């Protein structure tokens, strides 16, 4: 109905006046007006904090002329009396894809992988689409504009949401009447995201870390290109250069990704506005420290339907909690001084925007801040404060007329004016017909109660003897029409009432009976409308659960701190020349092992009776893939030395806690084995609750993953994949030789440039070759995935040719066949205790491998490559005792001191020695025994796992789950819409996991 009304307005009052002044008009006689419009007696929010009571807003030619209390009204002026009503600046959503068609996915015929681009004249990677301009893809979407207008928006930013570099965004006024004025700025923003373009089949980047590396390389290339170094034209880089001064917007769909984008910004001195995800409150401290400004969505999750306990059981606390806490995000951001604008992005329906924002306000978000986040803040972020976001003189006449405070749920939004054009949301002149009436239809008498909202009144008709008569009332444009149903519901003799309202005390009109005959009807008001107090609406929201770090099951409510602990009378596995000491004390103080000996005492220490228990240094896993976000392999290239796992450590993974429960304190998170030259490692300490960057081992030595054999030659990738070099072990050697030669040349060029005081042109920065040059310069170490003897010898030969040493062979299941050669070369071994038979190349793997290599004088470690096994590495160490008769003392070193040596961190960790980090595990039994359980796990003196605290956590989880499920059931009972109970699927990575984005 509303649509019809609008169309009428359009065709009658707005004759084709919407073209540029100098455009020919062949459709009508031009009808240009420049009269003023004055809105009087209104509460005017010039800005969220500059408020004029009983003021006048004067506009002309789509702009604000003046706003104040003593405004002279010009002669050629239309006046609108807004007594009791309010005027707010229309909202701005600077993050939409309004009017931009969603790019279509590439036809990936046969699903074969494309490695190198086929584009001509653009950047080498098809995800860099910086040459794309939203204004070129833009087509004004009248219907969508109406949705925005109804929600109070007057101006939106729009961009093509596709690719990693997405090109420019444009600013559009939602002017449904004058298309000549819709485009405000063609190129205003420049967009980036951690998201592949759907239009490309190019494999690289296939992981989040690959995207980060690609962005870095892109910025280096930009710098190089700008200096005129390129011999060829690159339109993507040219566009980037041209658009550098625009507002840079980076889309991140998770709090951790916001931190990642901020990291890139910092490295390159950039200033991104980060488009967040709504879970910023979960890591607010780190978010705040980015000093970034944000665009925040408010797509709060719907309540889950947990009425079936079987389904509810699948849900995880983190999702239940997120439902409970998400509406607090804006308050938390605001309380922490984070500057942010709001966006409708991710909402199922734009009309939910207002509902959700009101919810956030009920959860404590300040309503003035809310208004700022929709007006002055986005305007300032865009550098458009003089044009939009306020009603200051000269601004666009974009404003909303409301019945009262804009974020009051009861408030009616009447009109949304954009550039001086009126868009009607609800009829401003609608009469209030609500009240009690005596209704007469012909000769019959009824009681009529009209209640509900002014714009949507509801009808209740009863007979004089109080029998309910079903009726339905519609009220539009001051026409009232009511269908009255017969008392006998099996009959179809409906009566229809219709009448125009000119007097709100008495209504009248004609009634059309079921047989087509007509009667007169009249209603006489007997009582005015009285608002019933709706108690359910005032009711407080559900109790909000405290945030934990991370905000999952087993998270900590506060940051854990180091304690002074004195372990008394333990069996201490020192891993030093003292060996295993009985009845010995260990003092932990200031994060370090302060003393080891008998009869120690320290007044400030908490004493732990460790009699009968075993104390060891923490387990170190040389080869792990847990706690990694979005892809463990960057397999899009045969070398990906430019990527680093340090970019993608996932501090929120519950596996971290499980590692601690298994006595693991340090792990090397390795890139996978999908390509010969993999990515750089992250050595981490499992400081559960800390931010990812705090988990990174301080001043860690550089490591990189290399790989050999079946995985890198794509032997098990199915039939569609033999397109990437190498496809044989022969080719693997050539990949290495070629890359190292190029890295050597690269290094030589840079060294020459640096030693000549940087005269002349700098060579191009190549992050991949730079990383490989670090290996040549012995500043980075290789941990190489390896299986069969031929390839093991090959890589050592390649290394020797380039005058460096392979640091570690990981997996190394045929190491026993060439242990003497490995010893000569000086490489260490990190292997599995007993894995074999899963691939052809592990056919000769034997559980005696570790012991043989150990006896041949190699440094041998046992690793996991598996989330589950890594929490039982103590048992794996024991297999060296079983299969190879390795002494218990030496076997224990396989999972502690030896991996520390391989990782060059044995100066700080790997043994119990005064002065080393207090990374310690207390076991209830001999740690090599199947019966051993970790009771306490410490890192740098902080107890991150404690078997007793774990018991409490379990109880707390059960309790909180029940409370949240209770809250959800109540939501459902209240009739709120719900979504099915579900749980996000989790992927556990192994070396050869290709599950990525």
């Amino acid at each position, binding site marked *: 109905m509303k649509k019809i009304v609008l169309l009428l307005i359009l065709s009658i009052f707005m004759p084709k006046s919407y073209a540029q002044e100098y455009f020919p008009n062949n459709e009508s006689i031009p009808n240009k007006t420049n009269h003023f419009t004055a809105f009087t007696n209104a509460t005017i929010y010039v800005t969220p904090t500059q408020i004029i009571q009983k003021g006048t807003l004067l506009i002309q030619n789509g702009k604000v002329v003046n706003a104040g209390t003593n405004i002279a009204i010009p002669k050629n002026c239309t006046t609108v009396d807004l007594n009791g009503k309010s005027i707010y600046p229309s909202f701005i959503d600077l993050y939409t894809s309004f009017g931009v068609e969603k790019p279509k996915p590439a036809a990936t015929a046969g699903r074969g992988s494309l490695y190198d681009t086929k584009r001509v004249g653009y950047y080498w990677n098809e995800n860099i689409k910086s040459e794309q301009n939203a204004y070129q893809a833009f087509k004004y979407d009248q219907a969508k504009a109406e949705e925005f207008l109804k929600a109070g928006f007057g101006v939106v930013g729009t961009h093509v949401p596709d690719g990693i570099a997405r090109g420019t965004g444009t600013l559009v006024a939602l002017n449904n009447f004058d298309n000549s004025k819709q485009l405000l700025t063609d190129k205003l923003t420049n967009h980036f995201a951690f998201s592949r373009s759907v239009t490309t089949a190019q494999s690289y980047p296939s992981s989040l870390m690959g995207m980060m590396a690609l962005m870095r390389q892109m910025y280096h290339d930009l710098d190089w290109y700008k200096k005129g170094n390129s011999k060829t034209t690159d339109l993507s880089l040219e566009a980037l250069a041209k658009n550098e001064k625009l507002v840079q917007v980076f889309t991140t769909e998770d709090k951790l990704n916001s931190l990642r984008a901020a990291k890139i910004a910092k490295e390159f001195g950039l200033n991104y506005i980060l488009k967040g995800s709504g879970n910023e409150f979960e890591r607010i401290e780190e978010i705040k420290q980015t000093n970034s400004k944000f665009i925040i969505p408010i797509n709060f999750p719907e309540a889950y339907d947990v009425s079936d306990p079987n389904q509810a059981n699948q849900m995880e606390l983190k999702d239940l909690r997120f439902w409970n806490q998400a509406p607090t995000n804006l308050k938390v951001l605001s309380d922490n001084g984070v500057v942010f604008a709001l966006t409708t992005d991710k909402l199922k329906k734009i009309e939910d925007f207002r509902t959700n924002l009101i919810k956030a306000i009920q959860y404590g978000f300040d309503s003035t801040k809310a208004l700022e986040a929709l007006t002055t803040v986005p305007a300032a972020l865009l550098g458009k404060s003089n044009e939009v976001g306020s009603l200051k003189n000269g601004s666009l006449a974009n404003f909303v007329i409301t019945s009262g405070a804009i974020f009051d749920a009861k408030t009616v939004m009447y009109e949304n004016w954009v550039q001086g054009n009126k868009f009607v949301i609800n009829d401003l002149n609608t009469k209030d017909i609500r009240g009690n009436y005596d209704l007469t239809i012909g000769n019959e008498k009824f009681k009529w109660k009209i209640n509900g909202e002014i714009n949507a009144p509801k009808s209740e008709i009863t007979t004089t003897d109080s029998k309910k008569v079903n009726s339905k009332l519609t009220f539009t444009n001051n026409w009232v029409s009511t269908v009255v149903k017969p008392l006998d519901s099996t009959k179809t003799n409906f009566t229809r009432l219709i009448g125009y309202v000119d007097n709100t005390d008495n209504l009248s009109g004609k009634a059309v009976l079921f047989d087509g005959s007509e009667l007169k009807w009249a209603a006489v008001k007997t009582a005015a409308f009285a608002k019933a107090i709706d108690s359910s609406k005032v009711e407080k929201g559900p109790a909000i659960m405290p945030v934990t770090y991370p905000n999952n099951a087993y998270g900590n409510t506060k940051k854990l701190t180091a304690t002074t602990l004195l372990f008394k009378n333990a069996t201490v596995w020192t891993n030093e020349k003292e060996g295993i000491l009985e009845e010995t004390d260990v003092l932990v103080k200031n994060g370090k092992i302060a003393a080891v000996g008998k009869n120690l005492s320290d007044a400030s220490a908490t004493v732990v009776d460790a009699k009968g228990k075993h104390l060891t240094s923490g387990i170190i896993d040389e080869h792990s893939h847990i706690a990694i976000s979005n892809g463990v392999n960057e397999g899009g290239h045969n070398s990906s030395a430019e990527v680093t796992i340090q970019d993608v450590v996932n501090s929120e993974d519950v596996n971290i806690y499980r590692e601690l429960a298994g006595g693991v304190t340090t792990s090397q998170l390795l890139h996978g084995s999908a390509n010969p030259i993999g990515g750089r490692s992250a050595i981490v300490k499992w400081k559960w609750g800390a931010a990812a960057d705090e988990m990174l081992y301080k001043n860690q030595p550089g490591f990189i993953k290399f790989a050999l054999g079946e995985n890198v030659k794509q032997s098990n990738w199915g039939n569609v994949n033999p397109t990437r070099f190498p496809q044989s072990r022969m080719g693997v050697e050539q990949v290495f030789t070629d890359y190292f030669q190029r890295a050597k040349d690269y290094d030589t060029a840079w060294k020459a440039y640096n030693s000549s005081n940087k005269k002349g042109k700098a060579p191009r920065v190549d992050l991949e070759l730079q990383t490989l040059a670090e290996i040549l310069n012995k500043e980075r170490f290789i941990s190489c995935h390896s299986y069969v003897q031929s390839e093991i010898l090959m890589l050592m030969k390649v290394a020797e040719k380039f005058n460096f040493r392979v640091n570690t062979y990981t997996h190394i299941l045929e190491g026993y066949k060439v242990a003497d050669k490995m010893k000569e070369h000086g490489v260490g071994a990190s292997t599995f205790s007993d894995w074999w038979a899963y691939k052809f190349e592990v056919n000769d793997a034997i559980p005696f491998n570790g012991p043989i290599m150990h006896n041949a004088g190699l440094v041998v470690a046992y690793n996991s490559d598996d989330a589950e096994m890594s929490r039982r590495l103590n048992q794996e160490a024991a297999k060296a005792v079983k299969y190879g008769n390795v002494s218990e003392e030496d076997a224990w070193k396989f999972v502690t001191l030896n991996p520390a040596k391989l990782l060059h961190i044995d100066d700080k960790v790997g043994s119990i020695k005064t002065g080393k980090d207090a990374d310690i595990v207390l076991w209830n039994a001999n740690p090599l025994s199947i019966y051993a359980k970790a009771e306490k796990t410490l890192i740098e003196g902080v107890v991150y796992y404690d078997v007793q605290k774990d018991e409490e956590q379990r109880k707390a989880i059960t309790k909180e789950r029940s409370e949240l499920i209770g809250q959800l059931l109540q939501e459902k009972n209240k009739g709120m819409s719900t979504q099915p109970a579900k749980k996000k699927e*989790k992927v556990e990575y192994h070396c050869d996991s290709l599950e990525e984005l």
Partner: protein
Amino acid sequence: MLATLMLGASTLLQAQQTPANKQTKSVLILNATAHIGDGTVIENSAIGFKDGKITLIADARTIRLAADAYDTTINAEGKHVYPGFIAPNSTLGLVEIDAVKSSDDESEIGSMNPNVRSIIAYTADSKVIETVRPNGILMAQITPRGGIISGSSSIVQLDAWHWQDALVKENDGMHLNFPSTFRRSGWWAEPGAIEANKDYPKQVNELNSFFTNAKAYLGDTAKERNLVLESTKGLFDGTQTLYIHANEEKQIIDAVQFAKQNGIKKMAIVGGYEAYKAAELLQKNNVGVLLKRVHDMPENDDHDVDLPYKNARLLTEKGVLVGLENSGSHERMNTRNLPFLAGTCAAYGLDKETALQLITSNTAKILGIDEQCGTLTQGKDATLFISEGDALDMRTNKLTNAFIQGRAISLETHQTRLNERYKTKYNQK
């Protein structure tokens, strides 16, 4: 003599071990700690066996034997004797190398394959099989995978010339993968959510119809033959156990009802991650559980970190008969870690001898072979081994001798030979 036998075997550098000959000479093992497998222990035991069967199991201090009562005597003082461990729900011998498709015979296409039989694809001389025996695993239930009804399993002993020679019980059970109450969305690169499977009732109904049809077919005397339906006969006459693979509580409850309604005589649950929630029902209906790999991750972030480790205890405490199975990634080569799964169950609250039952007598009962094996009991098969120490702990699981039906089997493998070869190369001891 045994030592010479084994040395003899190790000098033959063929790929696989030669199966041992039928027991001709009787053996007496003296003074070992005998772990009977029923929860009891005899500290200084005397264990005798002849013609493949156990003839004596007693406290050595309380019996007298004639000097020539047994042909061979092994003094196992300080050592431990266990009944051979049993690996149920196993694909040993059906796949040689996981990544090599041509070596893979574990599943058929199609969803209803009750007529499929695993045993005929069982490679008795698989190189993987010989590597599980030195850790005490001497028997296995060879089980097909895939579809809804995967087919029939058979139980084998692990020292045989070929599958016929290996058989302990042919077609012991049929394997049914019960429909899941949940469904995964997304695909491997973009896993979506795990949500309720809306088709679950329909899928269960379809399964019911299949069994109703089968029963009707079997009761019809003048029938046109249908070999697929015919192959379900054993489920109705009690000669085959229906192994229902199910992990979710609701699935398990439905599975028990399903079996009852369809007149299935014997059933067991395979998997049973949430069986502890339906323990009372399982116990009341005498339904045993072959519990999924306990060295596994909790299936939900909120679950107790050690839920898989203590799961067997939770079930045992409620009177449910539990055995351990080890299916999952790298399952065949990982079979040799079965004893340590039981060890973990002991670490997380079960008494060690009760934990031992999880891979011996309980499994034998669930598989319906407990008359023949699963404990050190007079009259049962002499399928047992001697370990230097506690066989449930890696540190001490070191076998010196193993016997299958009285035959002294080789504990050598291609792996031990490679070990010897390279130790020799490097002059290591």
